[in-house]
């Protein structure tokens, strides 16, 4: 009972925050609402005793991805009028995509309901259950190839992003740290021996 109340409370905040992301005029407000939505889904995962997933969601999405989003959005000059015109133009497409997703989700849940009895409450794990260990023992044994392929794809993304943005501009002055560190006084200072001059 208590668990159900908590679940609906956080689920309601999650849905409200998600709606706020879409309807908020100010993109910075949208991002902060998205952060709130992430936090609430993390709480729901915590209630399902998936603490590793919950904390990693906060760590990766809230702590890194959304910070970069905020970084980009803050630097945009927000033109609300233009955004409004765009809203009407893109609305039919957006509604169509949303409808397809809703239909798919409902169908999935309905199918799962047909196949097996869905539990109405979160599964209670025995004491001493460690979600992190359980995930790790599956991830590095059964799904190790999928895991490694995902890692390689991410590496590829990093390399290609850097290659796309790296360009050689002519006339750019670059500091060569290794050369600066390796420099010796003999390279820079020339000691000139000369006889003392006589006073004329």
């Amino acid at each position, binding site marked *: 009972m208590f668990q159900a109340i908590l679940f609906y409370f956080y689920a309601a905040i999650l849905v409200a925050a998600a709606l706020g992301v879409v309807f908020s005029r*100010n993109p*910075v*407000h949208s991002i*902060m609402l998205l*952060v709130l939505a992430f936090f609430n889904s993390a709480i729901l995962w915590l209630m399902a005793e998936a*603490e*590793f997933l919950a*904390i*990693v969601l*906060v*760590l990766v999405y*809230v*702590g*890194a991805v959304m*910070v*970069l989003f*905020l*970084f980009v959005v*803050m*630097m945009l000059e927000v033109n609300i009028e233009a955004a409004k015109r765009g809203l009407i133009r893109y609305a039919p497409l957006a509604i169509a995509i949303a409808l397809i997703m809703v239909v798919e989700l409902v169908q999935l849940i309905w199918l799962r309901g047909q196949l097996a009895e869905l539990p109405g409450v979160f599964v209670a794990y025995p004491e001493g259950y*460690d*979600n*992190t260990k359980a995930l790790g023992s599956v991830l590095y044994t059964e799904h190790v190839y999928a895991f490694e392929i995902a890692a390689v794809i991410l590496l590829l993304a990093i390399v290609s992003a850097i290659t796309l943005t790296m360009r050689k501009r002519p006339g750019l002055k670059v500091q060569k*740290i290794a050369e600066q560190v390796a420099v010796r006084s003999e390279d820079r200072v020339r000691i000139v021996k000369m006889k003392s001059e006589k006073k004329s």
Partner: protein
Amino acid sequence: MSNLVPGFIVDIWDWLPASVQYVTIVTWKILYVTVGVILAVAYSTYFERRVIGSMQGRIGPNRVGPFGLLQPFADVLKLLIKEVIIPSKSNRFLFIIAPLLSLTPALAAWAVIPLNDTFVIADINAGLLYVLALTSVGVYGVILAGWASNSKYAFLGAMRSAAQIVAYEIAMGFALVGVLMAAGSLNLGDIVDAQAGGVSHWFIVPLLPLFFVFWISGLAETNRAPFDVAEGESEIVAGFHVEYSGVAFAIFFLAEYANMVLISALTAIFFLGGWASPFESWTFLEDVQVLGWLVHGGFGWLFAKICFFMYTFFWLRATFPRYRYDQIMRLGWKVFIPVTIIWIFVEGAMAWMHVGPWSGLAN
């Protein structure tokens, strides 16, 4: 103990349901830790001013109370009675909420810090991840403060801070991967237990490079000198909190120092054995009457280690000039991340070859 408390109070306590008893105890623990952290923050400011004062051949605050010991309270009172000015073109809601967003994670992270072998508010499995997640959330306060102020200087400070914190968080996370490999657990209490047995068993011995990476990244994450470009008072006035005054500024100040104490405590727990005594293996000391207490671990040792790291914070601030921004980025991405990755490989090899008592992977 129980005969000190009147009988009827014990009866009332026993009559309460278990959940209420639990909530009461946890609330007391939270109060205990929060008040402790805030007091520690107050005296850190005094400590800092005295340390830097003596390093620069000055005296530092010595007028309010004996040796200036009441100076923090005078400062707090001054900040409390000042006016909070909200810039007219600022985003009011975000402007007010930003200091709170930076203080809350700094205090909430203390929930999983074990202060001695029994006292911890929340003894959770993934404690290390929790700490990492909360320290990374603290950056929102800084970024939003910079944006909501509607000021160029504040905005520049926020930009610098965001890029810097994201860069150093990765190095910090990799350094902690090394710690969790050595300890074989994400629970902070277990990490301290894995270092039992004296100085040679502390993780600073096998993980010395990771210790330096973690500590310097901690400096950068808290925006302290020499990485304080987010404030950079000689370049961008005061950075992200240039528009803040009074209590709102005090909260930013509190958050910064609470984060410093937190990083000090974490470094002590991860690399210097937390509340464990450095003389744990010298059991012969127990026979000496005066020195017997040195062998046993406890909060005192953790406190001493935190004080040492706080001193190092101030020492570094008084010693080094501010880093140039591109060099900060270079240090984070091109030096620290490769160092941590290489050392994780070295550590894996050590665990595989059963070198040292720390190889948690072996068992």
